[in-house]
């Protein structure tokens, strides 16, 4: 009986937290749209926003000036959407990878996707391509990075138990970053500026194309990951147990990694390398809802969105500069992760 009580109370607890989290996130999204540098009162911003979202609205209220409408529709909406999607993409990817690899130090750059995307983007800047083409190049680069990692891992004669994959991901990533460095070396001053800031991760260039580029993989891929998330629970046992439960471990691994690569490639393509979110958010979410992936994955998605929204709101209102978001996530994420690891010192992670 006591065990049941405990199970039930944790069940309620995690569900309760999830509900609250969803509510908070939705409210935050709406609130982010109403704040900004331009002097626009909240109520007016809210009205304009509602009018914009609702597909069946009537004509524009003449009280609103053109500038105010532009602020909401062209500046804030793409930006907030981009922020949310970046957070969701990285949160889900990080959690999925950590669960699959049974390793808490794994990040979305596991299979060299982020480095590949960075390389594609750098190549595009060096060749003076338009912003839109750069996104495509970065995406292509990311997928190429993944293919390279798989190729390297498949060279190894040992059974692919994930370790090989991680290692090849690290090496491929290092190689691609060396190529990025080479590009930086040959760039002239204007290009170097753009490359460097893009590599640090930025939401400044939010526009419709970019939002669509990241929205589709994140929503579609994210949903796919959500559908199979209970299998992640099973994957966290070791391989033999999982297979005895009827899960095709190799296939699931491939699927998860491919989806994650797709999502991360699109994320890096639109906003550069945003560090730490994929590493910190899963831990944080785990502290809130426990290690059950059925609650953990949604929680990470929501927390990721919240985190990036909060940082972005900070940049847009309080801080007097457009600081690249990767810088801020590093600054804020590092103490958090130190704290988390400190607390976890007593608990082992990987069973020996």
């Amino acid at each position: 009986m006591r065990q049941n009580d405990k199970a039930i109370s944790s069940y309620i607890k995690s569900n309760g937290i999830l509900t609250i989290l969803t509510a908070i996130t939705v409210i935050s999204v709406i609130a982010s749209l109403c704040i900004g540098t331009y002097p626009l009162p909240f109520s007016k911003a809210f009205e304009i926003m509602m009018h914009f979202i609702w597909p069946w609205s009537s004509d524009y209220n003449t009280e609103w000036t053109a500038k105010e409408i532009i602020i909401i529709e062209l500046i804030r909406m793409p930006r907030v959407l981009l922020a949310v999607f970046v957070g969701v993409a990285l949160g889900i990817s990080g959690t999925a990878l950590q669960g699959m690899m049974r390793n808490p130090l794994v990040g979305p750059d596991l299979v060299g996707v982020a480095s590949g995307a960075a390389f594609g983007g750098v190549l595009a800047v060096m060749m003076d391509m338009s912003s839109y083409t750069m996104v495509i190049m970065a995406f292509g680069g990311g997928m190429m990075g993944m293919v390279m990692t798989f190729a390297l891992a498949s060279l190894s004669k040992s059974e692919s138990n994930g370790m090989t994959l991680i290692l090849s991901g690290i090496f491929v990533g290092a190689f691609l970053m060396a190529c990025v460095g080479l590009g930086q070396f040959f760039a002239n001053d204007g290009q170097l500026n753009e490359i460097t800031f893009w590599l640090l991760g930025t939401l400044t260039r939010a526009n419709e194309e970019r939002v669509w580029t990241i929205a589709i993989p994140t929503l579609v891929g994210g949903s796919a990951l959500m559908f199979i998330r209970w299998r992640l629970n099973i994957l966290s046992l070791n391989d033999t147990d999982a297979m005895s439960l009827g899960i095709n471990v190799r296939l699931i691994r491939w699927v998860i990694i491919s989806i994650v690569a797709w999502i991360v490639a699109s994320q890096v393509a639109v906003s550069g390398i945003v560090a730490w979110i994929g590493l910190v958010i899963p831990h944080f979410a785990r502290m809130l809802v426990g290690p059950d992936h059925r609650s953990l994955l949604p929680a990470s998605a929501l927390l990721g969105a919240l985190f990036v929204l909060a940082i972005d709101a900070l940049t847009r209102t309080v801080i007097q500069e457009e600081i690249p978001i990767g810088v801020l996530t590093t600054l804020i994420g590092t103490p958090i992760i130190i704290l988390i690891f400190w607390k976890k010192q007593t608990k082992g992670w990987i069973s020996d």
Partner: protein
Amino acid sequence: MFSISPFREGSWVIFFVFMGFMTFSLLRPLPVIVPNIPMHTVLDGDNTPVQMPLAVKGIVGWGSFLPMTHRPDLLYKGGGELGRKIFSMYIISWIYPDVLNDNAVWGTPYNLEALLAYDDDIVVINNVYFGGMAFGSDDLQRLGIHAIETSSKIENDDEYLKSNVRVMNTLVKQPQFTHTVLDRYFQGFLTLEHDLQPQKITDRPNVIGVGAPSNNWARLFVIRIDEVKQNQLALSSPTKQELASGRQQDPERILSIDPDIIMLLGTERRDFMSDPRWQGLKAVQTNKVYENSMKISGSRYDIDNLPIGARWMAEITHPEIMRPKLRETITKYYSDAYGYTLSDTQLDDILLIDKNKDASGYKRFMRQGGSCEAK
């Protein structure tokens, strides 16, 4: 095993649907922006007609606006503290000290919304940079911010300057000033050509620009000065086949090129001359190393200083042909253009007399009958 809980599924499904819904809103057509102040058409750098406010209240972006239009009252925002620092390196900051000291001018908008908060009759020239990313006039026009591109990818330096001057002056409704500025600019080169007689020159010395910020020789870079078209009057370019300009270089390359004259950019002459690596260079042995500054040659598109910088180089490279006329030229130019008289001390500062006094032939740039003596 499955235990689908409405809370768990609901949390993410609701959220994803919500986000999808918001994303679809981006597909809605945007409002047409009707300007509410009188506008007129200006041809921008590509000769494309653009609608600009008739009465421009201010310009964002210092760039070369001041030298090309002489309208300090119209400079609204000139870029942040870094912009102010760069501004103070030019002679024009002496001429318009109010601009230099006005804090309002050097507070820059830090994101798009702040830019949008300015009045409608503020115009942005060329690009603004937020967080390292450049936003051009296309991006800004789309957001209803008036922005104009004063010249696009024009290769020829002269055409670039002409286009800039024309667009800026048309924008602030003084089109006739275009001719004044351009005439003065071309006159400077005509006079130089007349004095130099370049077609008669047979012996052209090999000149390159060298610099190593903070004496960190790992960052040694070389500039081919003759790449700037305006300098080609006076300089030769046998270095063409060997050197990529502006790139970081190996010290050995400079030794193998062994130029006749070296212009230093960003390095102190003292440090360069005393470094053991460069002792073998004939430029060092003949003292033909000269420290350059922003006040002499300006930047690549500095309409005031390009003729002056070219003249400086011509007097250094061909001292036998050119009479020492640089000080008078500079004084006369600034007096004609801005009504500003440069004192002797200021001229010494501009020409870096103190740093270059040991260089070969630099005596010609000093005050006549002054106390500075060269070796």
